[in-house]
């Protein structure tokens, strides 16, 4: 046998993930085609998805807020390397989308858009799964696509990069 120059050392952890109250509310909202977040009672920031507490103020986020599927691309990248984790074949666009009324952008796919047309400030909307396929999963939003609106000014999302 030839000289050994590298070895594979797999690391694997098996979890049972249990959604807390806030995540559960969010996921049940997904099953209804709704996007639910929570507002901090002290700093008024709206977290989507909610985590149940404001990491800045350290208080529970008790007020539920519903936002629409419209938002702004704050930053993005085009992925050209395949991954076992994402079912999407490359190349594809990943972006941070700041939903209107939310204060935390989240990770999303952008489709129905040429790669060289994706830009910071681009206005997008959620494309939902067909009603019969809605479930308590983030995948109920299939992806985001551009909408015919002027780009959001940099000032409106510069705090969220």
């Amino acid at each position, binding site marked *: 046998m030839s000289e050994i120059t590298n070895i594979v050392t797999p690391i694997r*952890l098996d979890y049972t993930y249990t959604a807390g109250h806030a995540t559960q509310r969010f996921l049940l909202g997904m099953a209804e085609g709704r996007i639910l977040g929570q507002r901090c009672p002290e700093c008024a920031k709206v977290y989507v998805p909610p985590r149940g507490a404001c990491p800045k103020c350290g208080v529970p986020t008790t007020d539920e807020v519903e936002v629409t599927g419209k938002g702004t691309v704050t930053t993005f990248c085009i992925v050209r390397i395949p991954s076992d984790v994402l079912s999407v074949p490359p190349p594809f666009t990943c972006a941070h989308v700041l939903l209107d009324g939310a204060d935390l952008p989240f990770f999303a796919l952008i489709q129905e858009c040429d790669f060289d047309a994706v830009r910071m400030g681009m206005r997008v909307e959620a494309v939902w799964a067909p009603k019969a396929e809605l479930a308590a999963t983030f995948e109920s939003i299939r992806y985001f696509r551009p909408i015919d609106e002027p780009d959001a000014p940099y000032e409106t999302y510069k705090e969220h990069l």
Partner: protein
Amino acid sequence: MNRMAETASGRLTAAHVLEYPYRRSVGPVMGAFFTGLTERRLLGVRARDGRVLVPPVEYDPESGESIGEMIEVGPGGVVTTWAWVEKPRAKHPLDRPFAWALVRLDGAGSAMLHAVDAGSAAAMRTGMRVRPRWKAEPEGNIHDIVCFEPERA
């Protein structure tokens, strides 16, 4: 993450696997050790104080100098300490009760962690002689040694 499922208590749960299939380059010293395993040879490295360290390291533990003189040791050795595993877990090297043990191979000045298949805890003792049980088709990793087993006279 898989689809969430609602449990009897109404909580959403999902199975989640975090897995990294790391491929790491091993360098010339560990590479020589793993290559040795494919030939059923156990190799250590000579430290500046003369001790042979198994598994080998690239730098002298005292002075930090590069070392690389490979020395063959074993295959037999001595258990220097051990812990009995009554209920092996899924990823353990043996599917029956076994010992995790530090084995100092003959000629080595350090001990190596491996499994000892002794049948029962009563058959284990510090100072016992063991020898490797080799895998039929070596691949060049530590699992080429299936386990150590008591050396019978």
